[in-house]
């Protein structure tokens, strides 16, 4: 009987992987990385201008011209009618607020949790928050019958001596969304300061120099400045998490507080938050795919591991969404209220039932059947397609809740199908505006938080133990 020396327990699956495939263990010199980030910002091909031109034309026609018509003619240009007083404009609002949740989730929660693979794409996600909220705001304005009087909702002294009604869920909405816009913009700006200072130091002159010098607020990178910045970012990271959860909960109360069958549900708050994360994660996957394949040097920063991280989040959130959706479904199903039952039957076998089944396939079947596979999780184009499908599903979910849901009310005499009219070009315009803002931002600010990547790479080292390279992570804080 011979004894063969067996290697001790190998770390599972790591023998085939080279740690240097991960961004954190593949460091570049600081100057080199700064050059990559700056070049990705400057390198602009004719394709960029072509897409920009198309988007500008789309916005001029679909947003400016159509909105002019909507305001001058009246809300009747849209397809809304009795009983579908709320239509696609509010679907867009909820959808874009949902998209905006991804940014905060990724950069605040993952930062607080110290998830290292978040580092290169926090800013891409934070930009989605700010630009998504702009689209949500536009969508609310499109929805109003007399949008030129929107300031009457502001609690400002006025000649009518009239205060807004804080009983109304719409007022809670206004306050929550305003808070969220301000917080998320600050939270986008704080980690941007060191990168703006970097860009300022590497810019020769011209308007860009003035732009970066103004926005960098004189940041020089001293010990005290870093300390203040880290403290401020920590405060914001912790403070913005409850804001994020509250915003979509309050948006859901617009529906849950109403006396309508199918809406009046206590689970709407967490259900909407999870729904927001579901569409948001998927949107991050799409954006990472676009960034990686359209911008210069992004293959270095955005790697397969990052797609893997996003894909796992998408999978988990999809399961959580399915749980909450079933929860929301269960109460009316089991409760046996006449109108709630009618509402569910209408979803399942009514004329818009195909939307319901498409939603279930896109939101549950597609992620569950694909994302379990780690090879597929690391395939960027596949993730982008799954991301688009999930977003289609989440859009349909909101569509089913709002225009399809309000079709069923307690007065059967008024039941009527809703058909979007001017909503279609105006919905396209919000997507175009989102893309355009994103493209402009990618030319103006470093889309990769370079200093965060550098900080991470300094903390990560490969220790040589015998012949093996063992990854080691140190905590500098």
């Amino acid at each position, binding site marked *: 009987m011979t004894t063969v020396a067996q290697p001790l327990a190998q770390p599972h699956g790591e023998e085939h992987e080279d740690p240097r495939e991960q961004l954190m263990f593949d460091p570049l010199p600081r100057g080199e990385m700064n050059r990559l980030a700056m070049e990705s910002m400057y390198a602009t091909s004719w394709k960029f201008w072509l897409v920009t031109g198309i988007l500008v034309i789309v916005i001029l026609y679909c947003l400016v011209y159509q909105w002019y018509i909507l305001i001058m003619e009246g809300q*009747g240009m849209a397809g809304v009618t009795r009983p579908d007083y709320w239509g696609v404009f509010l679907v867009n609002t909820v959808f874009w607020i949902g998209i905006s949740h991804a940014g905060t989730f990724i950069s605040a929660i993952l930062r607080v949790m110290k998830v290292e693979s978040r580092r290169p794409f926090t800013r891409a996600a934070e930009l989605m928050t700010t630009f998504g909220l702009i689209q949500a705001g536009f969508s609310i304005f499109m929805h109003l019958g007399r949008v030129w009087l929107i300031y009457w909702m502001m609690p400002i002294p006025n000649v*009518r001596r009239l205060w807004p009604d804080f009983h*109304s869920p719409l007022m809670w909405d206004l306050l929550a969304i305003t808070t969220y816009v301000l917080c998320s913009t600050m939270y986008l700006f704080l980690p941007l300061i060191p990168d703006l200072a970097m860009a300022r130091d590497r810019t020769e002159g011209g308007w860009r120099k003035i732009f970066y010098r103004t926005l960098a607020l004189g940041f020089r990178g001293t010990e005290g400045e870093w300390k203040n910045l880290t403290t401020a970012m920590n405060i914001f990271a912790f403070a913005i998490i409850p804001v994020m959860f509250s915003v979509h909960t309050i948006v859901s109360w617009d529906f849950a507080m109403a006396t309508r069958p199918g809406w009046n549900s206590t689970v709407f708050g967490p259900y909407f938050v999870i729904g927001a994360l579901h569409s948001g994660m998927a949107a991050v996957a799409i954006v990472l795919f676009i960034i990686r394949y359209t911008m210069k040097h992004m293959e270095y920063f955005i790697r397969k591991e990052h797609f893997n991280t996003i894909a796992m989040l998408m999978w988990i959130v999809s399961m959580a969404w399915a749980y909450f959706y079933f929860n929301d479904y269960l109460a009316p199903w089991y409760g046996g209220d006449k109108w709630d039952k009618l509402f569910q039957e209408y979803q399942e076998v009514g004329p818009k039932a195909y939307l319901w089944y498409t939603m279930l396939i896109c939101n549950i079947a597609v992620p569950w059947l694909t994302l379990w596979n780690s090879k597929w999780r690391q395939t960027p184009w596949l993730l982008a397609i799954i991301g688009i499908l999930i977003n289609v599903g989440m859009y349909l979910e909101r569509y089913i809740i709002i225009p399809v849901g*309000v079709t069923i009310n307690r007065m059967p005499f008024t039941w009527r199908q809703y058909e979007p009219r001017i909503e279609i070009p105006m919905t396209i315009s919000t997507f175009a505006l989102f893309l355009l803002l994103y493209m402009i931002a990618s030319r103006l600010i470093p889309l990769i938080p370079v200093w965060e990547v550098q900080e991470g790479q300094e903390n990560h080292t490969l220790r040589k133990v015998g012949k093996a390279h063992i990854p080691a992570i140190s905590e500098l804080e």
Partner: protein
Amino acid sequence: MATETESKLPGFTNQSEEELGGRWGMVIDQDLCTGCQACVAACSMENNVPIVGEDDAGYGRGMHWIRIERLWESMEFPEVKMTDFQPLLCQQCHNAPCEPVCPVFASVHSASEDLNLQVYNRCIGTRYCANNCPYQVRAFNWFDYNDERVYPELTTLHNQMNPDVTVRRRGVMEKCTFCIQRIHKAEDKAKSEGREIEDGEFTTACAQACPATAITFGRLDDPESAVIQIVAANPSRAGHLLEELRTQPRITYLAGGV
């Protein structure tokens, strides 16, 4: 039985005090209603309700403040059984779902008249009130239906408008007011003569026009009024719409007697 359903707790009853009160109310006898739509026409004339045109009316944008609902019991088309006609207008709920959801106080409760008011000038058109109204009786101005610059054919029709009622523009919500202009006129007259308003001294346009006297309007705070007497004479036929929502409507429907 009635005593047993009452709460054992001292000071609590099943009915709130407001539920018993109210100032203006209406009784609609569905067994008398012939569905002639005279009330719809009268209301539109009295309250300057705009004519929306064929296309918009076909799309469900008719703005009538009162409508006659025609329903049938069986869903299989040839074997349908018509139910009673149901004139539906704002129920003037005491506990109105439309009021708390308005962010700008356009939908408010009148403490003195106990009516739901819609202040057109405050409305910014969020349409939350209409969405939240379980009776679906609110009407939205989708276009400038009353503007002759938009609809030139209205020029002569404008001569028949009621000068006592505001003409609404696009983007605001409106609804039945219980003909509040008539209420105010009667109140002013009674005040100048130094007396209380008598029941039956005036009535709303819909009640005035009804040839079958199916609609009766009057005071709820006067036990001798016609509204109270009719309900008291027909307790088995009386009921409110969607009572389970506890909106405490001021309109009582009489049905099921024939």
